[in-house]
């Protein structure tokens, strides 16, 4: 618990706390479903989007040199 409360006040690299960020965005940001931010922030959207037909249709899409994401075939 102590650690959690410490994390909340910990400064991010951009020198803004979570509390400050929420104040800046308004209290409604906390009630907004993640999907909205994911679409508005393309970088996040790319990272979180799933690939089609995992495993069999385009297995070569993953980097062959690195270990794949578990568990097993089919992503």
């Amino acid at each position, binding site marked *: 618990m102590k650690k959690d409360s410490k994390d909340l006040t910990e400064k991010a690299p951009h020198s803004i706390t979570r509390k400050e960020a929420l104040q800046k965005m308004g209290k409604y*940001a906390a009630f907004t479903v993640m999907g*909205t931010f994911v*679409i508005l922030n393309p970088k996040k959207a790319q990272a979180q*989007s799933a690939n*089609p037909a995992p495993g*069999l*249709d385009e*297995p*070569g899409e993953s980097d062959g040199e690195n270990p794949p994401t578990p568990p097993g075939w089919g992503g």
Partner: protein
Amino acid sequence: MISLEEIFLVNILYRPASEILNDVDIKSINFEKLITLTSGHLMLPALFFNIQKKKASYLFPKDFIDYIKNIFAINKTRNEILLAEAKQLSQLLVENNINHIFLKGTALLLSNVFEDIGERMIGDIDFIIQHKDEGKIKEVLEYNNSCKTKKLSLWRLFKPTHLSRKVRKNKTIAIETHLELLEPEQRCIFNSKKLQNDFKKGVKTYKTPSTFFLFEHCIYGIQLRDKGFFTSYHSHRAIYDIYKLDCKNSLTINNIKKNIFKKHFFLTIEKFNIFDLQIPSSTVSLYYDKCLRVLILLYFKLFVTIQKYIGKILVLIQLPCNKNLRKHALNKITYHYANKTLLNYIYRWLKE
């Protein structure tokens, strides 16, 4: 039971300014809940646009309006970038003689369905190409510095619905190249043959399907891809698209009751009273629809299971003769083999 916030949302989106407070006590509205509900349907920009259009901002707290105004502005800027990138992509494809048609949100924006470009939230640029151009488009997009990928050419039972999502170098929005409209098990109901005539029109820039196709694609998408047909799920983004498409010819009782998917879509949202449709539903017809729904669900489940196992068998058949596939499999197994005897055995076997 519809929540008060959802009634209010529907009133703002679809009813004239004078009817916004119908069946709603504004003092009882929980604005945090309204944000959660609206953002869950990806409708915050549309909510702001309609509040402004109907001059209803006096009903909301100031910080609420400020917040959704920001979301609308960000979304509008993003959609402007999306449109510019879609046009550049279209020109590139035409230069390479690739016949393509934009789909979903991008097609709606290009068709000027919305009053304001910032109304609709769009994840990526969707477009469909003909199957024969699959190899060509991969080359074109690779050449244009998309993410580098290692290719594994495998036998496929069905063509994929779309190629993997990519972002071209120095671009912001991801692109999704479709080869089909829906998953293989759903293609007997709705497929890309509906676009044959559009493809026949030749290679052109910024091509979009007809309004009727966009209307149907929207309904089948929500009913089949998003499983609305089995769960009675509704999406306000899809409802809003259909509302804005304004397909008066398609929105007739005769047209809708003939098709179980369209009928189910409109029966699910009948409670909101958005479209002026009174779909007749007797106990017998409801029972018949329910039975048909169970049969379609069983067919989908069976199809997917069979397809999954055939796919795995195909991979196993190709394993001895495909070096790249073996390398890929080895990579996956390396991750697990230390603790599992069977994988340990396969790992050694593949390595030999």
